[in-house]
Protein backbone atom coordinates (compact mmCIF):
# COMPACT_ATOMS: atom_id res chain seq x y z
CA UNK A 1 0.00 0.00 0.00
CA UNK A 2 1.40 3.39 -0.93
CA UNK A 3 1.30 6.16 1.62
CA UNK A 4 -1.38 8.74 0.96
CA UNK A 5 -0.12 12.19 0.08
CA UNK A 6 -2.03 13.59 3.03
CA UNK A 7 0.21 11.53 5.32
CA UNK A 8 3.41 13.18 4.07
CA UNK A 9 5.61 15.07 6.50
CA UNK A 10 6.21 18.54 5.04
CA UNK A 11 9.58 20.07 4.23
CA UNK A 12 10.77 23.12 6.16
CA UNK A 13 9.78 26.31 4.31
CA UNK A 14 11.99 29.11 2.99
CA UNK A 15 12.53 31.92 5.53
CA UNK A 16 10.78 35.27 5.07
CA UNK A 17 12.85 37.48 7.34
CA UNK A 18 15.28 37.40 10.26
CA UNK A 19 13.01 35.68 12.80
CA UNK A 20 11.84 32.87 10.55
CA UNK A 21 15.41 32.49 9.29
CA UNK A 22 16.65 31.99 12.87
CA UNK A 23 13.87 29.50 13.63
CA UNK A 24 14.29 27.46 10.46
CA UNK A 25 18.05 27.49 10.76
CA UNK A 26 17.77 26.16 14.32
CA UNK A 27 15.37 23.40 13.30
CA UNK A 28 17.95 22.05 10.90
CA UNK A 29 20.11 21.23 13.93
CA UNK A 30 19.51 18.72 16.72
CA UNK A 31 17.65 19.96 19.78
CA UNK A 32 18.65 21.65 22.04
CA UNK A 33 20.48 23.99 19.73
CA UNK A 34 22.29 27.26 20.18
CA UNK A 35 20.53 30.23 21.75
CA UNK A 36 18.35 30.87 18.74
CA UNK A 37 15.42 32.47 20.40
CA UNK A 38 17.55 34.78 22.46
CA UNK A 39 18.86 36.38 19.30
CA UNK A 40 15.60 36.63 17.44
CA UNK A 41 13.37 37.58 20.35
CA UNK A 42 15.74 40.20 21.70
CA UNK A 43 15.55 42.32 18.57
CA UNK A 44 13.97 45.72 19.22
CA UNK A 45 11.55 45.32 16.40
CA UNK A 46 11.18 41.63 15.76
CA UNK A 47 8.42 42.03 13.19
CA UNK A 48 9.67 44.42 10.59
CA UNK A 49 7.51 47.17 9.18
CA UNK A 50 4.52 44.93 8.46
CA UNK A 51 3.92 44.30 12.17
CA UNK A 52 2.72 41.08 13.80
CA UNK A 53 0.59 40.10 10.80
CA UNK A 54 3.51 40.35 8.39
CA UNK A 55 5.22 37.51 6.53
CA UNK A 56 8.13 36.95 8.92
CA UNK A 57 6.22 36.68 12.23
CA UNK A 58 3.32 34.72 10.71
CA UNK A 59 5.59 32.16 9.08
CA UNK A 60 7.60 31.89 12.32
CA UNK A 61 4.42 31.22 14.28
CA UNK A 62 3.21 28.73 11.71
CA UNK A 63 6.47 26.80 11.91
CA UNK A 64 6.45 26.82 15.73
CA UNK A 65 2.88 25.52 15.76
CA UNK A 66 3.50 22.87 13.12
CA UNK A 67 5.89 21.17 15.53
CA UNK A 68 2.78 20.26 17.58
CA UNK A 69 1.00 18.71 14.60
CA UNK A 70 3.15 16.72 12.19
CA UNK A 71 6.51 18.43 12.41
CA UNK A 72 8.84 18.72 9.44
CA UNK A 73 10.88 16.21 7.53
CA UNK A 74 14.23 15.60 9.24
CA UNK A 75 13.49 17.92 12.18
CA UNK A 76 14.21 16.69 15.70
CA UNK A 77 10.80 16.23 17.43
CA UNK A 78 12.39 17.49 20.66
CA UNK A 79 12.03 21.05 19.32
CA UNK A 80 8.31 20.93 20.13
CA UNK A 81 9.10 21.56 23.80
CA UNK A 82 12.35 23.49 23.52
CA UNK A 83 12.13 26.32 26.10
CA UNK A 84 14.00 28.81 23.93
CA UNK A 85 11.72 28.21 20.99
CA UNK A 86 8.63 28.36 23.21
CA UNK A 87 9.87 31.66 24.60
CA UNK A 88 10.14 33.07 21.10
CA UNK A 89 6.69 31.70 20.26
CA UNK A 90 5.34 33.47 23.34
CA UNK A 91 6.75 36.80 22.14
CA UNK A 92 5.16 36.29 18.73
CA UNK A 93 1.84 35.21 20.23
CA UNK A 94 1.57 38.19 22.55
CA UNK A 95 2.08 40.64 19.72
CA UNK A 96 -0.32 38.67 17.51
CA UNK A 97 -2.94 38.85 20.23
CA UNK A 98 -2.39 42.60 20.76
CA UNK A 99 -2.74 43.20 17.04
CA UNK A 100 -6.01 41.24 16.95
CA UNK A 101 -7.34 43.20 19.92
CA UNK A 102 -6.59 46.41 18.02
CA UNK A 103 -8.60 45.16 15.05
CA UNK A 104 -11.80 43.94 16.75
CA UNK A 105 -14.70 45.75 18.39
CA UNK A 106 -14.62 43.62 21.56
CA UNK A 107 -17.45 43.59 24.08
CA UNK A 108 -19.58 40.72 25.30
CA UNK A 109 -22.64 40.91 23.06
CA UNK A 110 -22.52 37.27 22.05
CA UNK A 111 -26.12 37.16 20.82
CA UNK A 112 -25.49 40.21 18.66
CA UNK A 113 -22.35 38.69 17.12
CA UNK A 114 -24.11 35.42 16.37
CA UNK A 115 -27.19 37.00 14.86
CA UNK A 116 -25.05 39.15 12.57
CA UNK A 117 -23.35 36.01 11.33
CA UNK A 118 -26.72 34.32 10.88
CA UNK A 119 -28.07 36.94 8.49
CA UNK A 120 -27.33 36.34 4.83
CA UNK A 121 -26.37 39.55 3.05
CA UNK A 122 -28.58 40.24 0.04
CA UNK A 123 -25.52 41.04 -2.00
CA UNK A 124 -22.85 38.66 -0.76
CA UNK A 125 -19.27 39.77 -1.24
CA UNK A 126 -16.37 37.51 -0.57
CA UNK A 127 -14.30 34.94 -2.37
CA UNK A 128 -16.99 32.29 -2.82
CA UNK A 129 -19.30 34.87 -4.40
CA UNK A 130 -16.55 36.00 -6.77
CA UNK A 131 -15.73 32.42 -7.74
CA UNK A 132 -19.41 31.59 -8.22
CA UNK A 133 -20.00 34.52 -10.55
CA UNK A 134 -16.83 35.44 -12.43
CA UNK A 135 -13.81 33.51 -11.14
CA UNK A 136 -11.82 31.29 -13.48
CA UNK A 137 -10.26 27.87 -12.98
CA UNK A 138 -6.71 29.12 -12.24
CA UNK A 139 -8.19 31.34 -9.50
CA UNK A 140 -10.12 28.36 -8.14
CA UNK A 141 -6.86 26.38 -7.97
CA UNK A 142 -5.20 29.27 -6.16
CA UNK A 143 -8.05 29.25 -3.65
CA UNK A 144 -7.56 25.51 -3.04
CA UNK A 145 -3.83 26.11 -2.62
CA UNK A 146 -4.37 28.77 0.06
CA UNK A 147 -6.94 26.71 1.91
CA UNK A 148 -4.83 23.53 1.81
CA UNK A 149 -2.74 24.91 4.68
CA UNK A 150 -5.75 24.54 6.95
CA UNK A 151 -7.97 22.08 5.17
CA UNK A 152 -5.40 19.27 5.16
CA UNK A 153 -5.41 19.48 8.95
CA UNK A 154 -9.08 20.36 9.15
CA UNK A 155 -10.51 20.17 12.68
CA UNK A 156 -7.12 19.29 14.22
CA UNK A 157 -6.58 22.68 15.92
CA UNK A 158 -10.06 22.52 17.44
CA UNK A 159 -9.33 19.09 18.92
CA UNK A 160 -6.89 20.67 21.40
CA UNK A 161 -9.84 22.09 23.35
CA UNK A 162 -11.42 18.73 24.20
CA UNK A 163 -9.75 18.15 27.61
CA UNK A 164 -10.62 21.72 28.61
CA UNK A 165 -14.37 21.15 28.30
CA UNK A 166 -16.77 19.19 30.48
CA UNK A 167 -20.26 17.70 30.32
CA UNK A 168 -22.52 18.54 27.39
CA UNK A 169 -20.11 21.02 25.82
CA UNK A 170 -17.46 18.30 25.68
CA UNK A 171 -19.82 15.57 24.46
CA UNK A 172 -21.21 17.77 21.70
CA UNK A 173 -17.87 19.16 20.55
CA UNK A 174 -16.53 15.63 20.29
CA UNK A 175 -19.62 14.62 18.28
CA UNK A 176 -18.89 17.44 15.81
CA UNK A 177 -15.23 16.44 15.68
CA UNK A 178 -16.21 12.81 15.10
CA UNK A 179 -18.12 14.01 12.04
CA UNK A 180 -15.13 16.12 10.90
CA UNK A 181 -12.98 13.02 11.28
CA UNK A 182 -15.23 10.95 9.04
CA UNK A 183 -17.50 9.28 11.61
CA UNK A 184 -15.05 6.42 12.05
CA UNK A 185 -14.23 6.03 8.33
CA UNK A 186 -10.73 7.05 7.29
CA UNK A 187 -11.69 7.89 3.72
CA UNK A 188 -14.42 10.26 4.93
CA UNK A 189 -12.17 12.39 7.17
CA UNK A 190 -12.79 15.94 5.90
CA UNK A 191 -9.06 16.50 5.48
CA UNK A 192 -8.98 13.39 3.26
CA UNK A 193 -11.91 14.71 1.22
CA UNK A 194 -9.85 17.86 0.72
CA UNK A 195 -6.84 15.78 -0.34
CA UNK A 196 -9.11 14.12 -2.93
CA UNK A 197 -10.19 17.58 -4.09
CA UNK A 198 -6.57 18.68 -4.47
CA UNK A 199 -5.67 15.61 -6.50
CA UNK A 200 -8.77 16.02 -8.69
CA UNK A 201 -7.72 19.63 -9.38
CA UNK A 202 -4.25 18.51 -10.42
CA UNK A 203 -2.63 19.90 -7.28
CA UNK A 204 -0.25 18.25 -4.83
CA UNK A 205 -2.28 16.81 -1.96
CA UNK A 206 0.78 16.58 0.30
CA UNK A 207 0.24 17.94 3.81
CA UNK A 208 1.85 21.37 4.03
CA UNK A 209 3.15 21.11 0.48
CA UNK A 210 2.21 24.69 -0.45
CA UNK A 211 3.52 26.48 2.63
CA UNK A 212 5.99 28.55 0.60
CA UNK A 213 3.18 29.65 -1.73
CA UNK A 214 0.90 30.88 1.04
CA UNK A 215 1.18 34.54 2.09
CA UNK A 216 0.85 35.72 5.70
CA UNK A 217 -2.83 36.59 5.13
CA UNK A 218 -3.44 32.86 4.54
CA UNK A 219 -1.33 31.69 7.48
CA UNK A 220 -2.86 34.11 10.00
CA UNK A 221 -6.30 32.41 10.26
CA UNK A 222 -4.58 29.03 10.71
CA UNK A 223 -2.26 30.49 13.33
CA UNK A 224 -5.27 31.89 15.15
CA UNK A 225 -6.77 28.40 15.48
CA UNK A 226 -3.51 26.90 16.69
CA UNK A 227 -3.00 29.73 19.15
CA UNK A 228 -6.51 29.45 20.60
CA UNK A 229 -6.36 25.67 20.60
CA UNK A 230 -2.98 25.28 22.30
CA UNK A 231 -3.76 27.64 25.19
CA UNK A 232 -6.24 26.38 27.74
CA UNK A 233 -6.83 29.98 28.80
CA UNK A 234 -8.22 30.69 25.32
CA UNK A 235 -10.85 27.93 25.35
CA UNK A 236 -13.72 30.41 25.26
CA UNK A 237 -12.26 32.06 22.17
CA UNK A 238 -11.56 28.69 20.53
CA UNK A 239 -15.18 27.65 20.92
CA UNK A 240 -16.39 31.06 19.68
CA UNK A 241 -14.10 30.72 16.68
CA UNK A 242 -15.30 27.19 15.92
CA UNK A 243 -18.96 28.24 16.10
CA UNK A 244 -18.29 31.22 13.80
CA UNK A 245 -16.57 29.01 11.24
CA UNK A 246 -19.41 26.48 11.21
CA UNK A 247 -22.00 29.24 10.83
CA UNK A 248 -20.23 30.77 7.82
CA UNK A 249 -19.52 27.49 6.06
CA UNK A 250 -22.88 26.39 4.63
CA UNK A 251 -23.63 29.52 2.54
CA UNK A 252 -20.00 29.74 1.40
CA UNK A 253 -19.94 26.06 0.53
CA UNK A 254 -23.18 26.42 -1.47
CA UNK A 255 -21.57 29.17 -3.54
CA UNK A 256 -18.46 27.01 -3.97
CA UNK A 257 -20.63 24.20 -5.34
CA UNK A 258 -22.14 26.65 -7.86
CA UNK A 259 -18.69 27.89 -8.79
CA UNK A 260 -17.38 24.37 -9.32
CA UNK A 261 -20.42 23.42 -11.40
CA UNK A 262 -20.00 26.54 -13.51
CA UNK A 263 -16.35 25.70 -14.10
CA UNK A 264 -17.05 22.03 -14.82
CA UNK A 265 -14.83 20.77 -11.99
CA UNK A 266 -14.44 17.12 -11.05
CA UNK A 267 -16.90 15.42 -8.71
CA UNK A 268 -14.34 15.13 -5.89
CA UNK A 269 -14.08 18.93 -5.83
CA UNK A 270 -17.85 19.37 -5.56
CA UNK A 271 -18.15 16.61 -3.01
CA UNK A 272 -15.99 18.37 -0.42
CA UNK A 273 -18.22 21.46 -0.48
CA UNK A 274 -21.51 19.55 -0.70
CA UNK A 275 -20.51 17.65 2.42
CA UNK A 276 -19.85 21.00 4.11
CA UNK A 277 -23.31 22.30 3.24
CA UNK A 278 -24.98 19.29 4.86
CA UNK A 279 -22.58 18.77 7.74
CA UNK A 280 -22.16 22.36 8.80
CA UNK A 281 -25.90 23.07 8.73
CA UNK A 282 -25.91 20.56 11.61
CA UNK A 283 -22.60 21.59 13.16
CA UNK A 284 -23.60 25.25 13.49
CA UNK A 285 -26.67 24.27 15.52
CA UNK A 286 -24.72 21.94 17.78
CA UNK A 287 -21.83 24.39 18.21
CA UNK A 288 -24.10 27.31 19.09
CA UNK A 289 -26.59 25.64 21.37
CA UNK A 290 -24.73 22.82 23.01
CA UNK A 291 -21.02 23.65 22.87
CA UNK A 292 -21.02 27.43 23.20
CA UNK A 293 -24.22 27.36 25.27
CA UNK A 294 -22.89 24.54 27.45
CA UNK A 295 -19.50 26.16 28.01
CA UNK A 296 -20.98 29.53 28.95
CA UNK A 297 -23.51 27.93 31.28
CA UNK A 298 -20.59 26.33 33.12
CA UNK A 299 -18.19 29.28 32.80
CA UNK A 300 -20.15 32.48 32.16
CA UNK A 301 -17.03 34.58 32.60
CA UNK A 302 -15.79 33.31 29.22
CA UNK A 303 -18.38 35.25 27.24
CA UNK A 304 -16.06 38.07 26.27
CA UNK A 305 -13.45 35.54 25.11
CA UNK A 306 -16.05 33.79 22.97
CA UNK A 307 -16.90 37.13 21.37
CA UNK A 308 -13.19 37.73 20.77
CA UNK A 309 -12.86 34.33 19.06
CA UNK A 310 -15.73 35.18 16.72
CA UNK A 311 -14.50 38.68 15.94
CA UNK A 312 -10.88 37.64 15.41
CA UNK A 313 -11.98 34.89 13.03
CA UNK A 314 -14.09 37.35 11.06
CA UNK A 315 -11.26 39.89 10.99
CA UNK A 316 -8.69 37.48 9.62
CA UNK A 317 -11.11 35.91 7.14
CA UNK A 318 -11.97 39.37 5.83
CA UNK A 319 -8.28 40.21 5.39
CA UNK A 320 -7.79 36.90 3.58
CA UNK A 321 -10.72 37.59 1.26
CA UNK A 322 -9.64 41.19 0.62
CA UNK A 323 -6.18 40.03 -0.32
CA UNK A 324 -7.44 37.44 -2.82
CA UNK A 325 -10.00 39.73 -4.42
CA UNK A 326 -7.56 42.64 -4.68
CA UNK A 327 -5.02 40.42 -6.41
CA UNK A 328 -7.55 38.86 -8.77
CA UNK A 329 -9.30 42.11 -9.69
CA UNK A 330 -5.95 43.59 -10.65
CA UNK A 331 -5.28 40.56 -12.83
CA UNK A 332 -2.49 39.10 -10.70
CA UNK A 333 -1.87 36.03 -8.57
CA UNK A 334 -2.95 35.93 -4.93
CA UNK A 335 -0.18 33.52 -4.01
CA UNK A 336 3.17 34.49 -2.58
CA UNK A 337 4.84 32.14 -5.04
CA UNK A 338 2.69 31.35 -8.10
CA UNK A 339 1.84 27.77 -8.96
CA UNK A 340 4.16 26.27 -11.51
CA UNK A 341 2.53 24.75 -14.58
Amino acid sequence: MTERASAHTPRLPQPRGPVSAAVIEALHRPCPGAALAATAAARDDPFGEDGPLGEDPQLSLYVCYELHYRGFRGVDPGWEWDPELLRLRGVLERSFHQELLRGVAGGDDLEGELSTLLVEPKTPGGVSHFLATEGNWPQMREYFTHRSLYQLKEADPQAWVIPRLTGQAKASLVAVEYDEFGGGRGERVHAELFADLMAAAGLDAGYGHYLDNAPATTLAPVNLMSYLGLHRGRRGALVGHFAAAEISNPPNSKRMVHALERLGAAEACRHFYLEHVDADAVHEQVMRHEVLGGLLAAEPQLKQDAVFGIQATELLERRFADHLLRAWLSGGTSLRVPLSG
Partner: protein
Amino acid sequence: MRPGHCGRDSPRRIRLVKNGPMLVEGPVEVELEDGTVVTSDRFVVAICRCHRSGRYPWCDTSHRRRSG
Protein backbone atom coordinates in the same frame (compact mmCIF):
# COMPACT_ATOMS: atom_id res chain seq x y z
CA MET B 1 -31.31 20.74 25.39
CA ARG B 2 -29.91 18.24 22.96
CA PRO B 3 -31.52 15.91 20.50
CA GLY B 4 -32.45 12.90 22.59
CA HIS B 5 -30.22 9.96 22.97
CA CYS B 6 -31.62 6.92 21.25
CA GLY B 7 -31.69 4.17 23.82
CA ARG B 8 -33.99 1.20 23.96
CA ASP B 9 -35.97 2.66 26.84
CA SER B 10 -35.80 6.36 26.11
CA PRO B 11 -37.84 7.94 23.35
CA ARG B 12 -35.97 9.64 20.55
CA ARG B 13 -36.08 13.36 21.16
CA ILE B 14 -36.51 15.71 18.21
CA ARG B 15 -35.68 19.36 18.64
CA LEU B 16 -37.40 22.04 16.62
CA VAL B 17 -35.20 25.09 16.09
CA LYS B 18 -37.10 28.36 15.96
CA ASN B 19 -37.18 29.55 12.32
CA GLY B 20 -34.85 26.68 11.52
CA PRO B 21 -34.63 22.93 10.97
CA MET B 22 -35.74 19.95 12.97
CA LEU B 23 -32.81 18.20 14.64
CA VAL B 24 -33.05 14.43 14.83
CA GLU B 25 -30.49 12.00 16.13
CA GLY B 26 -29.08 10.02 13.20
CA PRO B 27 -28.96 7.78 11.34
CA VAL B 28 -32.26 8.56 9.64
CA GLU B 29 -34.16 7.47 6.59
CA VAL B 30 -36.60 9.96 5.10
CA GLU B 31 -39.31 8.95 2.66
CA LEU B 32 -40.08 11.93 0.46
CA GLU B 33 -43.45 12.98 -0.97
CA ASP B 34 -42.72 11.11 -4.21
CA GLY B 35 -41.73 7.91 -2.43
CA THR B 36 -37.95 8.27 -2.80
CA VAL B 37 -36.05 7.31 0.31
CA VAL B 38 -32.94 9.20 1.34
CA THR B 39 -30.66 8.36 4.25
CA SER B 40 -28.13 10.14 6.42
CA ASP B 41 -25.91 8.51 9.02
CA ARG B 42 -24.73 11.74 10.63
CA PHE B 43 -24.87 11.83 14.47
CA VAL B 44 -27.51 14.54 14.23
CA VAL B 45 -29.47 15.31 11.09
CA ALA B 46 -31.04 18.71 10.35
CA ILE B 47 -34.30 18.29 8.49
CA CYS B 48 -35.57 21.30 6.56
CA ARG B 49 -38.85 22.78 7.72
CA CYS B 50 -38.85 25.92 5.58
CA HIS B 51 -38.96 24.07 2.23
CA ARG B 52 -36.39 26.48 0.82
CA SER B 53 -33.43 24.10 1.03
CA GLY B 54 -31.60 23.25 -2.15
CA ARG B 55 -30.63 20.00 -0.41
CA TYR B 56 -34.16 19.12 0.68
CA PRO B 57 -35.02 17.23 2.90
CA TRP B 58 -31.75 18.25 4.59
CA CYS B 59 -31.35 21.79 5.89
CA ASP B 60 -28.80 23.87 3.96
CA THR B 61 -29.31 27.06 6.04
CA SER B 62 -31.55 28.66 3.38
CA HIS B 63 -33.95 29.38 6.25
CA ARG B 64 -31.70 32.22 7.36
CA ARG B 65 -32.90 35.78 7.33
CA ARG B 66 -31.61 37.97 4.51
CA SER B 67 -30.48 41.51 5.14
CA GLY B 68 -32.16 44.33 3.26
